[in-house]
């Protein structure tokens, strides 16, 4: 209850799989009443506009459900390509890795709740 969800994307997803993930994740946020979502994309060798849009949609839907999303572990080559593609993922929180992402989530939630103590479970 009120914990964090950690999702690690491990495979080169085709588009339907990405949409399934988007749906599953949204229902998970509701079911577990999660306050934070960490999406680890360190295994992704490429993020195109479709996956970029999926990440944005997850973040917006999570916000509606009162959860904060942090995308972590983007590879440098992926970041450079996204910027060149014209998709800097504005509005999505990012962190270097899971550990930093977790810290960012805690800080953000503490700010939201004015210093509330967050139990975190995975």
């Amino acid at each position, binding site marked *: 209850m009120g914990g964090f969800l950690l999702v690690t994307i491990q495979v*080169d997803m*085709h*588009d339907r799989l990405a949409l399934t993930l988007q749906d599953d994740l949204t229902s998970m946020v509701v079911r577990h009443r999660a306050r934070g979502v960490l999406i680890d994309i360190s295994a992704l060798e490429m993020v*195109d506009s*479709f996956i970029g849009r999926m990440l944005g949609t997850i973040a917006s839907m999570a916000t509606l459900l009162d959860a904060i999303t942090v995308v972590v572990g983007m*590879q440098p*080559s*992926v970041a450079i390509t996204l910027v060149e593609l*014209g*998709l800097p993922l504005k509005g999505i929180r990012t962190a270097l890795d899971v550990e930093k992402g977790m810290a960012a989530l805690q800080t953000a939630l503490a700010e939201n709740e004015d210093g509330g103590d967050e139990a975190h479970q995975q």
Partner: protein
Amino acid sequence: MKLISSESVPVRTPEDIVAVRQAVRRKAVKLGFGLVDQTKVVTASSELARNTLDYGGGGIVQLEIVESERSKSGLRLIFEDRGPGIPDIDLALSDGYTTGAGMGLGLGGAKRLSHEFEIWSKPGEGTRVSILRWK
């Protein structure tokens, strides 16, 4: 420009887009592209393959390894479909323009990720997009 090798991959299903990305990655690695250049050309191929599937109703990609007169090697990707075609190419190239569910970055983004970009389209006949990235 000299054609060194050529291979074609069909684009009929969303899974094929993944296959295109993987085939493009293999070629880029074989050509000795750096990691950033690999990622750029793979990402461009993913955008264009999705266009071919979503707007062109499917088609094929031609993966070509080419060599310039100055013996520089490059990867050329030609996406071809027999779909409805694009009535206004300039409009389709502008960011944010989309008729589908995407972000409207496909064509413009792929162009920015490539060194050379060519597009041919005729309403009712189909679309052919060719991109080239030098090593």
